[in-house]
């Protein structure tokens, strides 16, 4: 009798834990279904392909094309990765190979804290402090140096004031994703077997040669997956971008033009939208969801494949 009750309680408990974990699947399926349903009108109106190639985003004409927000998301993320990857790997090299051991813990923690600062704080800092600084320094310098080159010079000169631009957004985004790459790279670097490094030192390699030829190839999988995860984060980053991208639905003619991304257009327009406008925003959210999900799934599959080999 007692054994029977015990078995029943255990069964109920295991069922409850299973259902709780199942909520993750429910949430993901729910997000997928909702975004599908809500974006259906926009897909019916334009078709998926026309939506992503349509450049106009015009309330007056009631035309909403996804090209610019999509391009903005891709460009800011790519720009951010371009800057963040070398910096983050440099940080990992410093922490694992150069840093005196009593400082290791605090420097690692400081870099990780960069990831803990809320997005909106990056936004405040970016808008009020960093963007004006960029406008008066890098933007001026690049415009003055490359702006004179015929044909492509205009790409480097600023047309708008305030320093909010796709350039500033990429910079802020790069600071935000550095810790993701750096901490994964650091973890894998520090797992390189000591005798593997010693045997490279043993045939007369310099420290940098050991890092480049032994540590980095050995840690390729881990570092690459860190980069993919950071790319996924960059695609979905919202509040900081919403502050410093400038939210302009116009053609991108210069590195220093304000522009738009999926997340910034969502943050700015969602609450005032209705009808086709709303549905187009949902379609953008859906595209972002798929892109982010695919990126992170790719990272998972990549690791599994490499590790199992």
């Amino acid at each position: 009798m007692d054994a029977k009750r015990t078995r029943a309680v255990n069964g109920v408990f295991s069922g409850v834990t299973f259902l709780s974990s199942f909520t993750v699947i429910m949430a993901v399926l729910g997000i997928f279904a909702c975004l599908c349903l809500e974006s259906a009108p926009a897909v019916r109106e334009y078709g998926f392909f026309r939506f992503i190639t349509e450049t106009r985003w015009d309330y007056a004409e009631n035309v909403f094309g996804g090209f610019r927000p999509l391009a903005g998301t891709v460009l800011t993320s790519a720009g951010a990765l371009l800057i963040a990857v070398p910096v983050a790997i440099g940080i990992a090299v410093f922490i694992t190979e150069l840093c005196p051991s009593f400082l290791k813990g605090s420097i690692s923690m400081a870099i990780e804290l960069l990831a803990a600062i809320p997005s909106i704080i990056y936004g405040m800092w970016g808008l009020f402090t960093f963007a004006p600084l960029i406008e008066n320094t890098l933007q001026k310098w690049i415009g003055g140096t490359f702006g004179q080159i015929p044909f492509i010079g205009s790409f480097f000169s600023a047309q708008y004031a305030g320093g909010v631009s796709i350039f500033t957004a990429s910079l802020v985004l790069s600071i935000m994703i550095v810790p993701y790459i750096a901490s994964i790279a650091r973890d894998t670097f520090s797992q390189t077997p000591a005798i593997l490094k010693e045997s490279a030192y043993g045939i007369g390699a310099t420290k940098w040669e050991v890092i480049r030829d032994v540590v980095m190839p050995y840690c390729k999988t881990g570092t690459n997956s860190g980069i993919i995860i950071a790319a996924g984060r960059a695609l979905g980053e919202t509040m900081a971008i919403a502050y410093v991208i400038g939210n302009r639905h116009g053609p991108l003619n210069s590195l220093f033009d304000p522009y738009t991304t999926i997340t910034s257009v969502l943050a700015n327009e969602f609450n005032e939208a209705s009808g086709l406008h709303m549905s187009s925003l949902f379609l953008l959210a859906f595209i972002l969801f798929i892109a982010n999900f695919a990126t992170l799934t790719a990272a998972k599959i990549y690791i599994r494949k490499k590790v199992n080999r």
Partner: protein
Amino acid sequence: MITGYARRKITNAAALVLSACAAALGLFFLFYILADVLRHGIMSINLKLFTLDAAPPMMAGAEGGLRQAFAGQLMLTGGAVLIGVPLGILGGTFLAEYGRFSKIGRFISGLSDITVSMPSIIIGTFIYSILVKPFGGFNGWAGAAALAVIMLPIVIRTTEEMMRLVPWTTREAAFALGAPYYKVITQVVWRGAAAGIFTGILLSVARVAGETAPLLFTSFNNNFLTFDMSGPMPSLTVTIYQYAASPYEEWVKLAWAASFVITLFILIINILGRQFIKWRYKN
């Protein structure tokens, strides 16, 4: 040969100097941002910030604080903890125990990892379409639910990891005394993993406390103190977002003050939590 060797030495020195510069750059930006928030925020920190509600801008002599936003933030975060933590702990328990060798367990674990990095604004749009639109307006429950969806995978994965750290022999020892599995879990494994799970929950609270995007379309904002979760709820982050973009100097100041408080809170939890984990799991 000599020049080749000299070049290798120079390359080595250059690469190492550059890596030190990268680390310095990272630290520089951390302190730059923190100093900036401190510089702008500290002047507006006073008791009124916590005891007064927001005053309408441009009103002569009006003094305002952010009491409503602090209260709202607490309620939203509290609501998220109420929903997300029990589900997360139980779900993580399934992944670490009953489901640890099952395909579905591994699948959910992997899916949670992916969901941890899901853009929070997408969760906002999702909750909008199931909890705001059908009920005719922004409400606090929707905000809490959105934060809970963000917390859930974090708590699930931390719980799973922390329970896996409890050695299998500990469970066997309890089984050998004749304890059923659910008692082994609740009385032995949970106790062993409690410190880690608790820290994980704290860190997830710090994470959602800084979230803005999922609240924009769910709890929205409110300039008045309210305890009614079925109406729009103010939060610190959305208040920062709206006030910072406003043309009123007083409001921008309040936005900086709120930024300071929230950054301080999140940094302290992160530093303490990480130190605690390090200390607890040193071996």
